[in-house]
């Protein structure tokens, strides 16, 4: 009975990790890839850790698995936010079929301050239209 539960959990976790890897290859945009990393992989790793905690049926292993799950759940959104912010300032282009960019004209390039209303002073906005630094050209 316990092994059936373990098989179900481990299969679901592996499936989610495989989906995250496929999305990592197939997604057309950096920001969509960040979304893949922070959702699907976190769920998959959590399921794998829960299955290992069920298999050992032990206080120390269960506490370790719960601590790792808590840590991953806490740190995945923080790191995704930081990476997304850095890539937005770096001028990584959005997908060309993206519908809207909510931050257009709100982040200031010099001071890195987020304003709540749009001002279109040229030279101070983050530019996403052309490859303006060396990280973009190595395709």
């Amino acid at each position, binding site marked *: 009975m316990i*092994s059936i539960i*373990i*098989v179900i959990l*481990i*299969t679901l*976790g*592996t499936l989610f*990790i*495989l989906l*995250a*890897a*496929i999305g*990592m*290859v197939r997604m057309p945009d*950096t920001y969509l*890839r*960040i979304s*893949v*990393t922070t959702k699907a*992989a*976190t769920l*998959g*790793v959590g399921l*794998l*850790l829960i*299955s*290992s905690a069920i*298999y*050992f049926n*032990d206080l*120390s*292993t269960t506490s*370790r*698995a719960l*601590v*790792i799950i808590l*840590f*991953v759940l806490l*740190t995945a959104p*923080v*790191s995704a936010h*930081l*990476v997304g*912010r*850095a*890539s937005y*300032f*770096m001028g*990584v282009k959005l997908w060309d079929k993206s519908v809207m960019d909510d931050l257009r004209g709100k982040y200031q390039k*010099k001071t*890195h301050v987020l304003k709540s209303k749009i001002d279109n002073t040229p030279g101070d906005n983050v530019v996403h239209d052309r490859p303006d*630094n060396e*990280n*973009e050209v*190595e*395709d």
Partner: protein
Amino acid sequence: MTLNDYIYYVILPVLAFSILLIFYRFFKGPSIVDKIIALDLLITTGIGIIAVYSIVHGRSTFMDTAMILALIAFLSTVAFSYFIEKRNRKK
């Protein structure tokens, strides 16, 4: 088919294949941010593989390594993004 056989012949190859897919993005990735994300996902998948390996071998001591790996993944991502942002601010 026992649990160990299932894990050994089905689960671990699928995880290894997903590691290969993430490595493809890690080497190809157009910008440096893609490489950072791929590295983060690589370490996260590594945590999952360590959990599965601890089931296969029946040793729960491997979970300590997984905890340290989770910590290192968070720290490296934060450090990389901080320095990228700082470099672009100076320009």
